[in-house]
């Protein structure tokens, strides 16, 4: 290769390498801030600030939803199967909100460790299944990977 071109090739590699390192360091320094939400385990460990707007995300614990009969108030637990966080919320829920599904609640953690949510978002996973397949799998007692439940 022509020496001038070789020099320019090294310049290009230098730009690519050092911009990657620089941005890599920025991303590493901000790693905590880039997370959209705290998992319940972090909240239980006291890593989430009290009295400030935060988000907590996890699965809606089975049999934990408690709806008020005369209003839109709801109380449920978010879990990451290590710890639970209790959430209270008044308002409209997304269609996909259900027990055993993922959800992200934004609100303020009070002194009792209960999240007073102002917004609930549903989180869905990367599995896409037709309903018939899901039902067939449920009745057979195997999950989609062929493992017995």
């Amino acid at each position, binding site marked *: 290769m022509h020496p001038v071109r070789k020099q*320019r090739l090294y310049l290009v590699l230098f730009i690519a390498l050092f911009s*990657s390192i620089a941005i890599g360091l920025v991303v590493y320094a901000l790693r905590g801030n880039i997370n959209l939400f705290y*998992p319940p385990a972090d909240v239980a460990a006291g890593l989430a600030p009290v009295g400030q707007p935060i988000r907590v995300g996890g699965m809606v614990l089975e049999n934990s939803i408690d709806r008020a009969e005369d209003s839109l108030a709801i109380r449920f637990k978010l879990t990451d199967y290590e710890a639970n966080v209790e959430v209270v919320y008044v308002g409209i829920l997304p269609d996909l909100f259900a027990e055993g599904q993922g959800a992200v609640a934004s609100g303020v953690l009070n002194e009792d460790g209960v999240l007073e949510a102002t917004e609930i*978002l*549903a989180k869905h996973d990367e599995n896409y299944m037709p*309903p018939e397949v899901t039902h067939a799998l449920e009745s057979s007692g195997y999950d989609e990977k062929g493992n017995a439940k």
Partner: protein
Amino acid sequence: MWPIFHKFGSPPWLYSISGAILRWLLPITLIALITGAIWGLLFTPAENVQGNSYRIIYIHVPAAVVALAGYYVMALAGAVSLIWRMKMADVAMKAAAPVGAAFTFIALFTGAVWGKPTWGTWWVWDARITSMLVLLFLYLGVVALYEAFDNKEAAGKACAVLSLVGMVNIPIIYKSVDWWYSLHQGASIKFTGETSIHSSMLYPLLLMIAAFYALFTCCLLLNMRAELLQREQRTQWVRKLIDKEVVN
């Protein structure tokens, strides 16, 4: 290898070969897009949790995949034009930027439309969505930077450096859902490990991804041809081409 490389440096050769490619690639792209869209929208089952709203995957995922791949095309063309001072690579880089921006916008827009019925919000500042917005700004930045220079050679160099620096964003976008807690779900189609989309839904998706790659190639070539004609408007071969068009 080198003779081909030198041929790529010749505008009339590139113009005629791209015309020949487009003559069969454009119809194939159209057929694949229409087939994939009809298959995905009408002949796949509804999803167990999301119902019918998941069908926007057939636009959203292909657009996002091609937006990321298109950035590598732009950055590599920029690197080639920096190192070998190849004019045609500069044309390719300049032509790729608006096309990539369009695909990124489609991915962001369809993502917002999909997010409203499933997540319950149009927009959330999570890592995947924010880094995708940065990608849109990078593409638009290259377009704007090119126009900001009077000297086109300086413009090409500046844009090549910008696209090279921005390349670091692509693996960040790709891995963002694994590295951080985000609302966006993880990848369903994986290079390693099992794909978590049922095959009845996967095949039309793969067809649509292939169709979007072809669509990107068509848009890129058409854009490059327009740019070539504009740059070479005073040369013999363009004049001959125009004379032929006028006679016909």
